[in-house]
């Protein structure tokens, strides 16, 4: 017998952002979310039952069927697909597919209840720790990864025993701290690239409160797995980054919004929070686990999800810096951004800025996966040549293979072809080539891969993950998927191109959030790089 309904409700009712936590408590206790559980939660938190039902149905991972929570979910992200996730899926009884689960640097991840296993077709499942980043091939200076490979780094003792950067930040005071951060050039590493100091200053100057710091750990972009390694192996860096943000902005409460697919990380973070109670002082940090929704990586969806509302993105303005969590001023930063903060505070803006190449300031972690010899997370100087990363650091393709394309920004940046490998890894250069760096996921496809089918999978992912709020994205991702799959739309190449361009153009121009704006980069880059492949596919229909 687990805890009773009222035990669970009493435990969560007064807690900050209680809804997701309470739903997980029922989900974990019962193995699914029953009608009775939803009724109890609705009554316990005084939320409308229909709303609660709708919100629960939005997420992938809340199961409404008995035993559903513990049924295996097999990652069928683009790289796992290459490794045979379809076969593994067929091998495991009762298994269902899940979108990219953020472990693209090792065999196929399988989520079973509260556990992440990895598996290979024919070889079953095994437990495996989160891989550390490969050694930095250039032995160049790193920021986030400088200490991540050290034994015991995830404990406070291993972290150095104290939050020294936080102490220095308090010494400096908010004004000097913000100036330092501004001079470092640190900008959002989750994809949007907004200057961190400007964001913090806006929150600091915003009226109202209590102010909030949210760590966006909903690493849902396919092909991205950098935040997981930071949180699992260097959680105190992330927490200290949050605490520095709180010191700079006057925030008194913090949340780590963690994607569902990282259950182990929750344990690591909560242990770290316990250890760091004295360091954090009266800055209260809680971990809240998502439930499987790519859109919740979008900061306003995330805030809605955290509040227990339907996770549609919000209209902006107003922005989270003035109207964030519960309509109070809120910093939302990515894990990597926050983990970069303590080294910057300790070693200074000039040091960090100097890590970049040319005019670029600082570093960026690239999650590299797919058809290269040494996949993994690499922290590169901004402005680093893509070719060098692919071929020198990661060892290039297997013998006898050629690389035909890589994705950028996970999937959101579309494809780059061999002609683009000369690009450098920074936003100005990549945007000039019609793509962007984003969260730094790069998936590699060699000449075995059917790029039209890869594009179809990518668009199907966006269609599955479209929240359904805005028309161009909700219908457009569906229509583009159908056209890539050949289930609807014209078959004559000119007509096909015309429709795909027209849908894509309108999506890119008028969609309400980044998902719908970015998704057509898949079709546009496919048509630019692989026009003959498209024609061949159409000819087969």
């Amino acid at each position, binding site marked *: 017998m687990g805890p009773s309904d009222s035990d669970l409700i009493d435990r969560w009712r007064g807690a900050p952002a209680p809804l997701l936590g309470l739903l997980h408590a029922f989900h974990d206790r019962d193995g699914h979310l029953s*009608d009775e559980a*939803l009724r109890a939660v609705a009554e316990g938190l005084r939320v*409308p*039952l*229909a*709303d*609660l*039902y*709708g*919100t629960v*149905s*939005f997420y992938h991972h809340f199961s409404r069927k008995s035993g559903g929570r513990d049924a295996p979910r097999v990652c069928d992200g683009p790289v796992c697909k290459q490794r045979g996730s379809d076969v593994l899926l067929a091998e495991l009884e009762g298994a269902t597919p899940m979108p990219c689960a953020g472990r693209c640097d090792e065999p196929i991840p399988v989520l079973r209840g509260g556990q992440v296993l990895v598996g290979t077709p024919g070889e079953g499942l095994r437990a495996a720790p989160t891989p550390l980043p490969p050694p930095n091939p250039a032995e160049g200076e790193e920021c986030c990864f400088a200490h991540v490979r050290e034994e015991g780094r995830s404990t406070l003792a291993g972290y150095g025993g104290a939050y020294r950067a936080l102490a220095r930040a308090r010494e400096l005071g908010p004004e000097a701290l913000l100036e330092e951060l501004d001079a470092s050039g640190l900008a959002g590493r989750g994809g949007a690239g907004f200057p961190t100091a400007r964001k913090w200053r806006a929150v600091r100057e915003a009226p109202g409160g209590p102010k909030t710091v949210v760590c966006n750990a909903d690493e849902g972009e396919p092909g991205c797995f950098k935040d997981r390694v930071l949180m699992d192996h260097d959680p105190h860096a992330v927490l200290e980054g949050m605490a520095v943000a709180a010191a700079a902005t006057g925030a008194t409460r913090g949340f780590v919004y963690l994607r569902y697919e990282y259950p182990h990380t929750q344990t690591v973070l909560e242990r770290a929070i316990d250890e760091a109670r004295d360091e954090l002082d009266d800055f209260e940090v809680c971990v809240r686990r998502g439930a499987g*929704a790519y*859109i919740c990586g979008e900061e306003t969806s995330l805030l809605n999800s955290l509040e227990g509302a*339907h996770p549609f993105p919000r*209209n902006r*303005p107003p922005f989270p810096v003035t109207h964030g969590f519960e309509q109070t001023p809120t910093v939302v930063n990515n894990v990597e951004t926050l983990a970069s903060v303590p080294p910057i505070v300790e070693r200074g803006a000039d040091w960090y800025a100097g890590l970049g190449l040319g005019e670029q300031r600082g570093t960026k972690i690239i999650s590299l996966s797919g058809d290269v010899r040494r996949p993994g997370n690499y922290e590169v100087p901004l402005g680093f040549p893509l070719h060098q990363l692919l071929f020198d650091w990661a060892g290039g393709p297997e013998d006898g293979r050629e690389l035909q394309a890589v994705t950028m920004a996970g999937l959101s940046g579309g494809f780059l072809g061999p002609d683009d490998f000369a690009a450098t890894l920074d936003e100005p250069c990549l945007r000039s080539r019609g793509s962007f760096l984003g969260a730094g996921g790069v998936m590699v496809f060699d000449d075995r891969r059917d790029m039209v089918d890869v594009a179809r999978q990518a668009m199907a992912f966006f*269609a*599955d*993950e*479209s*929240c*359904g*709020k*805005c*028309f*161009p994205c*909700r*219908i*457009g*991702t*569906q*229509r583009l998927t*159908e056209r890539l799959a050949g*289930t*609807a*739309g014209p078959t004559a190449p000119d007509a096909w191109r015309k*429709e795909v361009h*027209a*849908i894509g*153009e*309108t999506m*890119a*121009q*008028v*969609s*309400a959030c980044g998902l719908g*704006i970015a998704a057509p980069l898949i079709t546009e880059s496919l048509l630019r790089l692989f026009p003959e492949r498209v024609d061949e596919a159409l000819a087969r229909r």
Partner: protein
Amino acid sequence: MTSPAEHRLLLDGESVSFREGETLFELARRHGDAVPSLCFDDRLEPLGACRLCVVEVEGQARPVASCTTQAADGMVVRTMTEALERHRKALCDLVVSENPAGATIDPLRGSASQELAALAVRYEADGGRFAGARSGASRTDDPNPMILRDYDHCISCYRCVRVCSEQQGDDAITVGGRGFATRITTEFEGPLADSACTFCGQCVQTCPTGALADRRALRHADAPGELAATRSVCPYCGVGCSLDILTKGERIVGVQPAFDGPANEGALCVKGQFAWEWVQHPDRLATPLVREDGELVEASWDEALDRAADGFREAARAHGREAVYAVASGRAPHESAYTIQKLVRTCFQSNHVDNCSRA
């Protein structure tokens, strides 16, 4: 305080003033009403979902939804460029591609039911361009006789869900699932009668495609005659909701709320919205009746009125003028109550009159 006249921006080349807090959509609507929308309802918080109302604002990388963008001093706004109209046509084609029947919807379905149909005409959208799978599945299994849940026509604008929450405060319906598989549902997918629905019909009246429709009215879809509307006030409680009585010839075929009704501002309840069929019920009295040999039998007005008058005169003669009493109705118009009290006070010189408020 700044006076409204001090706020100005450039709208399609013309300098116009705007009110503090006014959105570009509201502003554009005051100046020509040509910017389309499907998810907008005056009474609801703007959602920015359909994106048909996008406009160009100088300095913005992409068009912005005018319904969620507040006017600001010095903005340069364009509402009718070739690119905007191209996007609007594409959006309209996308919507109609999953709802090709949207252009032929009976107006009896609801107040806003013609909105998609009108846009389909404007943008020549016939469902052919961008054809593909269709979302939404009608709930033919819901037995309630009031609200038809014809979700084949649903375009996921969420006006129904929003009106139920923001306006009506019932939160009976919700957005289930996501993306293309989004559906409007109650908790646990049950029929409306098992939910918190109070059958106020507000969802029906805001639905821009007739996907939610008035089942009582729709029975008269094929009745002959021009559809006409007569402004009146609800006959039930004391709130006094304004409404339009819909008729075809001499038949009432429906009721729709008056959005400019001062007491209700477009709201109605289950009775005002759906309980009007009694008016033309066969039980209605159509001739005067008089009691003959213990039975009520039909009579002419002259006979009946004479009998009525004789009885009162006789009672007054036999027992005095104070023997006559009258009860006026709290249901009938003033003219009824006024004439009744005047009759008692002038014909019998008493104040023996009351209304039913003490019951």
